[in-house]
């Protein structure tokens, strides 16, 4: 089956006063219809820019975005409007992502108005809004409320309903639960999973929270400073990591359990600037395994074992090497 979305050599650069910021730098991946791709990474790794470039809130600097077999890298105005019905986005901040002067109903209905859905019949649109509110678990009595009257979880439900109003097939979720409390976070995650099943949605799920991404994704891309460093299925990644950054990242997750002992890799060194990066591995300054080649050449993303891609000079095609971290960089955590 052909992929629903494919991204080839996608780059997004920003011009800043101090140079060119390589926010997304030569990213490649594909998503099958109905699956969830998790994109994890720390702040500034370009994951949000990646999401925004895919839904055309930002124009790509170069590279191709192929959606449903069509190249949509530089759509015309008309094509873009059509595309909006296919791909939508759910935003991070439940406070700033809703217009404070609009009611819940008008926020959800706006997309239907713009695209003149249901023959532009306002009555029908309104009915669809109520249906959607019901789908995402918002009581009908809240239709005339303003966002500031509602809590974070309900606001995020509005954001989801707005994204669903155009009945898209594909949704980019940019940290949709990171601003929420854990008990509310669980409610929203379950809702998103139910919706995916019900409406056969495809998600890109952007987050810095590895526990969340493990829970919701089928496949994962780990990003570091604009590049994908490791990419494979969720199960494989949590079983073993072959990129030193992915290793450190996973070892750093706090686990809500006591009576266990585990090793944690403590990274040293400074994060490299993404502005005008040198042609070398971007993780070299913090990597406990760095060799001289790492500062001379940029590693390519290679398939080190079936279905697993890693960008590291220590790895070879088809022959994944397990890396053991020197004791000096490891702390034992007893909890």
């Amino acid at each position: 089956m052909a992929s629903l979305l494919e991204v080839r050599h996608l780059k997004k650069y920003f011009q800043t006063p101090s140079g060119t910021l390589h926010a997304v730098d030569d990213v490649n991946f594909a998503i099958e219809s109905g699956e969830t791709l998790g994109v994890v990474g720390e702040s500034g790794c370009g994951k949000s820019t990646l999401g925004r470039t895919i839904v055309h809130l930002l124009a790509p600097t170069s590279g191709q975005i192929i959606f449903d077999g069509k190249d949509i890298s530089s759509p015309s105005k008309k094509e873009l409007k059509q595309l909006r019905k296919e791909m939508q986005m759910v935003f991070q901040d439940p406070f700033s992502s809703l217009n404070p002067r609009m009611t819940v109903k008008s926020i959800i209905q706006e997309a239907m108005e713009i695209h003149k859905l249901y023959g532009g019949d306002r009555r029908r649109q309104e009915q669809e809004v109520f249906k959607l509110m019901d789908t995402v678990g918002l009581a009908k009595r809240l239709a005339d409320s303003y966002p500031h009257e509602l809590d974070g979880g309900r606001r995020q439900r509005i954001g989801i309903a707005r994204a669903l109003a155009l009945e898209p097939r594909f949704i980019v979720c940019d940290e949709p639960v990171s601003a929420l409390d854990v008990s509310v976070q669980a409610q929203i995650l379950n809702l998103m999973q139910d919706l995916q099943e019900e409406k056969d949605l495809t998600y890109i799920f952007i987050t810095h929270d590895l526990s969340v991404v493990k829970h919701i994704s089928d496949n994962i891309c780990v990003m570091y400073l604009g590049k994908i460093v490791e990419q494979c299925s969720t199960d494989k990644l949590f079983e073993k990591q072959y990129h030193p950054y992915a290793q450190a990242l996973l070892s750093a997750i706090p686990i809500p359990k006591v009576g266990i002992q585990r090793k944690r890799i403590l990274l040293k060194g400074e994060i490299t600037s993404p502005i005008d990066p040198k042609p070398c591995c971007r993780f070299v300054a913090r990597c406990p395994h760095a060799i001289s080649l790492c500062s001379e050449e940029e590693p390519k993303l290679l398939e080190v074992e079936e279905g697993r891609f890693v960008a590291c000079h220590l790895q070879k095609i088809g022959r994944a090497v397990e890396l053991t971290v020197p004791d000096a960089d490891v702390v034992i955590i007893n909890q």
Partner: protein
Amino acid sequence: MANKHFLEIKDLSIHYKTDSGLVKAVNNLSLNLDKGESLGLVGETGAGKTTTALGIMNLIPDPPGIIASGEIFLEGENILMLNRQEMRKLRGNKISMVFQDPMTSLNPVMSVGKQIAESIQIHEKLSKVEAEKRAVDVLEMVGIPGERFNEYPHQFSGGMRQRVVIAIALACKPDLLIADEPTTALDVTIQAQVLDLISNLKREQNTSMILITHDLGVVAEVCEKVAIMYAGELVEYGTLDDIYNHTKHPYSIGLFASIPNIYSEEKRLTLIPGLMPDPTDLPEGCSFCSRCNRAVEQCKVHNPALVETDPGHFVRCIHYEEGGAL
């Protein structure tokens, strides 16, 4: 009155007067902390964690806040009775606080080294040169090269800034450190560094700590005791083992179940339905009862007391009360 604990909070209630009514932020909270012990104060937004911390620092903004009742003893002294000047001396010397956002607690136009030196000088009689020397030591203690003494906060990364803030808080070797979500704004790999730093310093200086967080994973790493707050009340309180392995209160159980866990294979999370009640309009009975799967009729009218079910393990639930609906 002799107090055997280092810090003892008794029956603390803190309220805020607002336009929409009286916000009961903290209600009848009691807890103890011994020397060198760390307590994780866990709860969701609006549970009253930060208000409790501000109460211990005696920093409740008044108005609108009022300490409606309670006593806080630090080494036997009721700190709520201290005057402004005595309290100021206490803060920094005995109690320090680290806030969530490192940028707002640093002065942007003063070099970090100077800021550390200044806080040392306020509390200790040292010459400027000596204080600056100490500041370099402190910087190196938190893993920042001493050469960066003259740099300004904006030249540091988020993790380094938070380490500077912790360095300032620990510069005067306080007996009690209150850390309010110190790693929430940081990336996980940076969070790991900061947590490692906090645990090491705490061990070296035998500092007691109250760590405020919503992350049960962080608590498991650095604390010995845990207190779970809900709607301004302590609902469960005990050692790590008590809370994590012998969870009793339905809210705590729900909280653990709703966290996606990298060790679990479940495809669906278990939920706590509903929302925390409005703190201006708390129910007469148990404040968790409308969301609780074990609620009985009596919960609506009866607010249970905090009961010690095992030595040191306290639970506020009707099912554990003597003569309660077991």
